[in-house]
């Protein structure tokens, strides 16, 4: 079968159009010819759903310093983040926020007209002494305001957009990344983008869990594409289970609710976080709050018919305050919980929210390939945002650091990719460039077997939810892995009913499911081998952190079969750029 492929040449190709991708694109477009490839129209990317804020030590309402922010980030990460990246991000944060404001982001304001700030989980003054107002926000629509502003800016900047293009294969020639094979969802045509530099900003993968806050598109495609080409997924076992997902639906209720004074209650009406984090209580980092809530439920103090969740109370701050600062939350609680939060508490449960790890990068967003002995930057390959790991989140991300990560490392990736593109000539495509992605596409386009998306995805997400969730054990995770192998085998007996060339969502779901099974296997294998508890990875069989054996990044590669995870490790960069290292300490709040 002959296949027609359209070829394009660009200096920089950005895959993904969320906050990181668009910030990379608008910056790179200022220097060179830049394209953005996105599975959805850019304004449909998942950054749009971010609610509560973006942190920066602006000190608009009280004294604050980037060094305090850095400390919180390192401690929040359970000391697994790279401290050079944590310094880089927190130091750049204030200037980054100002840059966003200057391009139009409609931040909420203080009475004197400065950018307003509010408290968020794990953000403290003077190295842990008290909560601090550090999160800049646009009501509870910060991500929405940011994504649209960045889209508008990149339009103004002349970025070339290829929307509803789905990436099938990352192209590599002689060790250098030089392009992407894509599928035009609207008409089924194939495109190869040959580029001097490629930026991955493909987002997360929490759709592998049954209860999650993620959009349909968050299926780990970028990770799967990178892993199939011999790159790794760093710290794959660390997921963030956000404490306040709406019970039953998983949709997010921002931590900003607790930042504005909301509290968590158990069946006895007790504000239980006072017991678990006496200093900052409900504003403890997310891993700690999620575990505390789950413990309350396991010990019989859950609410509702099945005593299986807790309550988030916010009505005491007053309806007017809620409608001004948290209007979106009011709407979500009404639709997804049937609750008017100006009068009643919202039923909540932890929800899979964020992938803390990702494609490993240096603090300048260059993708790293490495292990404990050596590491090197991959020519032409950059990554930023949730799909990447600089690493600033380590084992647990602080609330509001995700939007900051997107824009800081997105901008850096854009600058570095442009710089790289201007200094290097294009690496030509291999003769068979795209053949692997094309073979995979044809496998599913012609799949006439037995199993369809609904049943396999259902079992995948139920399994991940019950066996790879907030509390883990070796036994559960091994069971999880065997189920994943069974599901993987079923993918060889799969059926795509839809044979149309136009907007074939059935085919896209098959490709996404195939990627989801791969990333689920990778993170489960990483979790089995990390025999300690740290941040978002908590094991009943190894409840303590073990810095002697596990203060290191996991790096999951694939074996040559491109299916079986091979778990390796890499050193944590404990040395910051200019300040002193924050040595690992017990994590108490």
């Amino acid at each position, binding site marked *: 079968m002959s296949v027609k492929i359209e070829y394009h040449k660009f200096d920089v190709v950005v895959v993904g159009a969320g906050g990181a991708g668009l910030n990379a694109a608008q910056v790179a477009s200022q220097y060179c010819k830049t394209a953005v490839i996105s599975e*959805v*129209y850019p*304004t*449909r*990317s*998942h950054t*749009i*759903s971010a609610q509560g804020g973006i942190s920066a030590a602006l000190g608009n309402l009280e004294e604050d310093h980037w060094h305090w922010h850095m400390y919180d980030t390192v401690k929040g990460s359970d000391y697994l983040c790279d401290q050079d990246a944590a310094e880089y991000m927190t130091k750049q944060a204030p200037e980054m*926020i*100002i840059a966003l*404001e*200057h*391009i*139009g982001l*409609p*931040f909420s*304001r*203080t*009475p*004197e*007209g*400065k*950018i307003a700030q509010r408290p968020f989980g794990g953000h403290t003054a003077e190295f842990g002494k008290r909560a601090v107002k550090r999160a800049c926000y*646009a009501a509870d*629509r910060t991500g*929405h*305001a940011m994504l*649209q*502003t960045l889209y*508008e*800016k990149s*339009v*103004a900047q002349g970025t070339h957009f290829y929307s509803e293009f789905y990436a099938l294969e990352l192209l590599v020639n002689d060790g250098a990344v030089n392009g992407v094979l894509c599928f035009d969802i*609207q008409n089924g045509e194939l495109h190869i983008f040959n580029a001097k530099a490629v930026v991955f900003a493909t987002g997360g993968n929490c759709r592998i869990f049954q209860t999650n806050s993620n*959009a*349909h598109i968050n299926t780990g495609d970028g990770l799967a594409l990178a892993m199939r080409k011999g790159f790794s997924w760093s710290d794959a076992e660390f997921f963030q289970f956000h404490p306040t997902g709406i019970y*039953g639906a998983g*949709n*997010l209720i921002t931590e900003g609710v607790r930042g504005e004074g909301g509290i968590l209650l158990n069946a006895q009406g007790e504000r239980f976080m006072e017991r678990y984090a006496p200093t900052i209580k409900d504003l403890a980092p997310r891993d700690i709050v999620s575990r505390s809530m789950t413990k309350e439920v396991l010990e019989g103090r859950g609410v509702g018919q099945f005593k299986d969740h807790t309550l988030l109370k916010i009505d005491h701050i007053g309806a007017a305050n809620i409608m001004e600062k948290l209007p979106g939350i009011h709407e*979500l609680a009404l*639709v*997804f919980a*049937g609750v008017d939060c100006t009068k009643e508490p919202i039923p909540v449960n932890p929800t899979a929210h964020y992938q803390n790890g990702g494609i490993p990068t240096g603090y300048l967003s260059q993708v790293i390939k490495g292990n404990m002995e050596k590491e090197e930057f991959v020519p032409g390959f950059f990554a930023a945002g949730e799909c990447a790991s600089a690493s600033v989140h380590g084992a647990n991300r602080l609330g509001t650091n995700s939007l900051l990560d997107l824009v800081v490392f997105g901008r850096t990736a854009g600058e570095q990719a442009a710089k790289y593109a201007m200094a290097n000539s294009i690496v030509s495509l291999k003769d068979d460039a795209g053949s692997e992605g094309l073979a995979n596409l044809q496998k599913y386009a012609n799949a006439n077997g037995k199993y*369809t*998306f*609904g049943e396999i*995805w*259902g079992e995948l997400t139920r399994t991940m939810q019950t066996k790879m969730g907030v509390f883990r054990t070796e036994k559960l995770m091994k069971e999880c892995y065997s189920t994943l192998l069974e599901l993987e085998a079923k993918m060889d007996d799969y059926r*795509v*009913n*839809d*044979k*149309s*060339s*136009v*907007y*074939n*969502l*059935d085919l896209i*779901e098959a490709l996404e499911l195939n990627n989801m099974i791969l990333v689920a296997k990778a993170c489960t294998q990483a979790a089995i081998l990390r025999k300690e508890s740290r941040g978002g990875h908590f094991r009943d069989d190894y409840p303590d952190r073990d810095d002697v054996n596990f203060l290191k990044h996991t790096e999951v590669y694939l074996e040559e079969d491109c299916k079986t995870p091979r778990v390796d490790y890499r050193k944590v960069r404990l040395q910051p750029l200019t300040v002193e290292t924050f040595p690992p300490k017990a994590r108490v709040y």
Partner: protein
Amino acid sequence: MTTVTFEIFRYDPDKDKEPYYQTYKVELRRPGYLMLDALNQIKWEQDPTLTYRRSCREGVCGSDGLNVNGVNMLSCMTKVEDLGADHIVVQPLPGMNVMRDLVVDVDDFFNKFIAVKPYLIRKSPNPDKEIYQSPEDRKKLDGLYECILCGCCSSSCPSFWADKKYLGPNAALRAWRYIVDSRDEGAEERLPILNDKHGVWRCHTIYNCVEACPKELNPTEAIMNIRKMLLDQQV
């Protein structure tokens, strides 16, 4: 368990000469079952070929505008029970070209949005700090910046259907969001684009856009404000 009949617009240009409607039965499996849950139930359990857009599933990404029993809405924020009907007709957004089933071509919609220069235009140099904006000035953006670009407004507008060049309520709303922003200095660049027979004068104050907006915004009011500004400038 309540079962509801869905009659859904189908069209695949690869095989269909013309569109048709296909009927499905959907179980409402819990209180508050959403239109998107219903579409997913059909796709994942009955007919994988049914095609529609969706992403965030919480009413902010704007992917899933649909016409349900004659009214534009987001599938992820609409409870089936709230429709008060056991027979539900689902169609693509009207006035836009259908690509397949419930998926419409939105390029024209986005191009019109871009045409009004939807970004902050500054002539003065920026300060080192943020550009100060009083809470009162910031409040002027409320009811404007929350637009999710779903297209429910423009595709409900008879003027938008009739005049293929009409910018539509969405573009006007976004233009006004920047014109009233105390930090913006680009009104004089945007007003001539809006002051066109395919611009704000094409609105006949039918208010369909206001009815259709899932975020309860008011594009007609934005259009009226722009017209007033244009008239004031002529005096």
